[in-house]
């Protein structure tokens, strides 16, 4: 192992420019991937924020008994899809309307407004099918006059999320593939630069494992350092945008750690493929 690490250090010392180039290339590939990830994360957060506003409003018939309303609220709250249920009296509805709509400024009589129940759904249950299903169940109560949930709006929002999610996965895979190719090529250059040494090693009876191990460690470490640099760059870019343009979210520490580790794994993968191919040839 001591010999292996000596070979890793020697390899870096022998070609410092190529080693730095590898790390920078890995860093920039992962930085591009990181920026894209940041974009996906923030679009997702924004859409989730909008989605939280998905609610079902059930308008109640005049004269509905408070006990019936309480019982219905209890029932509906127990639906697995439902996060919580609020009762809105005609007075509360008027106060809200007066606060939000100027044409209600001169209206003081709330009696013409119906009481209602506002139902918020749990995360993961805000898709059009579930919303419609819950709506239909609420409609079965005899004292419910009408139920509204902005059908078109919910559908559009859901479509946008689906498209954004699919585009995120497709572009993410593309970015990752490009990063793997670039990193693999960079590491291959390192392997090629040391092909003479590899052939000498093999001539004097080094096993494939012995030849391969320093390259694998080298690739992993370069990937890891590149990943760290990419994380720093992404963090800097995020701070810059957050400070000057719009408030954005950054990756959780766990995701950031996985990203850096991902760099190491891509480096390892790139060197495994390059060295393997090279060993078969030498």
């Amino acid at each position: 192992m001591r010999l292996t690490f000596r070979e890793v250090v020697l390899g870096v010392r022998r070609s410092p420019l190529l080693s730095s180039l590898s790390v920078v290339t890995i860093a920039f590939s992962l930085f591009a991937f990181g920026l894209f990830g940041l974009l996906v994360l923030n679009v997702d957060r924004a859409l989730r924020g909008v989605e939280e506003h998905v609610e079902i409003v059930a308008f109640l018939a005049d004269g509905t008994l408070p006990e019936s309303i309480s019982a219905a609220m209890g029932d509906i709250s127990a639906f697995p899809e439902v996060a919580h249920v609020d009762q809105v009296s005609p007075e509360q509805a008027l106060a809200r309307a007066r606060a939000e709509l100027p044409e209600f400024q001169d209206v003081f009589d709330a009696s013409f407004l119906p009481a209602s129940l506002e139902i918020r759904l749990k995360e993961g249950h805000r898709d059009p099918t579930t919303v419609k299903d819950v709506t239909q169940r609420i409609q079965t109560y005899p004292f419910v006059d009408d139920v509204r949930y902005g059908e078109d709006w919910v559908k559009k929002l859901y479509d946008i999320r689906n498209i954004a999610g699919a585009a995120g996965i497709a572009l993410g895979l593309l970015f990752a593939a490009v990063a793997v190719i670039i990193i693999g090529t960079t590491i291959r250059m390192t392997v090629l630069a040391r092909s003479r040494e590899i052939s000498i090693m093999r001539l004097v009876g080094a096993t494939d494992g012995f030849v391969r191990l320093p390259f694998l460690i080298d690739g992993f470490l370069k990937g890891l350092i590149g990943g760290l640099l990419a994380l720093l760059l992404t963090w800097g870019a995020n701070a810059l945008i957050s400070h000057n343009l719009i408030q954005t979210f950054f990756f959780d520490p766990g995701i950031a750690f996985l990203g850096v580790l991902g760099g190491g794994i891509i480096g390892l993968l790139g060197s495994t493929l390059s060295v393997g191919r090279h060993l078969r040839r030498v």
Partner: protein
Amino acid sequence: MIRFSHVVKEYPRTGLALNDVTFRVNKGEFAFLTGPSGAGKSTILRLVIVEETPTAGEVRVSGSLTSGLPRAEIPRLRRRIGVVFQDFRLLEDRTAEENVAFALEVTGAPREGISARVSRLLTQVGLASKGTSYPKELSGGEQQRVAIARALVNDPVLLVADEPTGNLDDRATRGVFQLLRDINAAGTAVLMATHNLELVKREPYRVIEVNRGQLVFDSAEGTGGAATVTSSTPT
């Protein structure tokens, strides 16, 4: 030590490199391998050091059949063969000592004892005082001596030399050849490919000549062709 039986080597792009070559080099023997460029000398050496396997026929080195030899076994076989090239193939960023030690280290030899063994070998090849020199600081002859010390570090039973004096002047050639002769006298078989006909004529060793991929002369047998040629040890 080396046994070629009806060996054919064909490359997909360049065609037939060896055609029905049969010969044998015995334990402790010294043999020259001669022939014009492109005759097949290097192919024979590559088959011996298992960089290649034959298209047809059999190559046995130190008792091992090279075709179908498991990949993991190849390094073990190579440790029994020392190889020396015309261009020395030394690692430029390592000293003479480190170049020789490297061949021991890659085999997983225990650290203690490496240094003593390396010193002994450098003394044997006449470079006791140049151990800390880098290849660039050494003459061609000295670099080839380092390469020979490296080839000997694992106590090989066979030394394969591909034009080892090709890049050297007369004086260095004599020195390196004397060294190969001493190594052979100590019991290691030597197969040396060379263009140096003067050297071949001068020395009393066996000569195997190839041309256009065929064995055309074997001094041990006095004939060419594909017949099995078994030589005696050098006189």
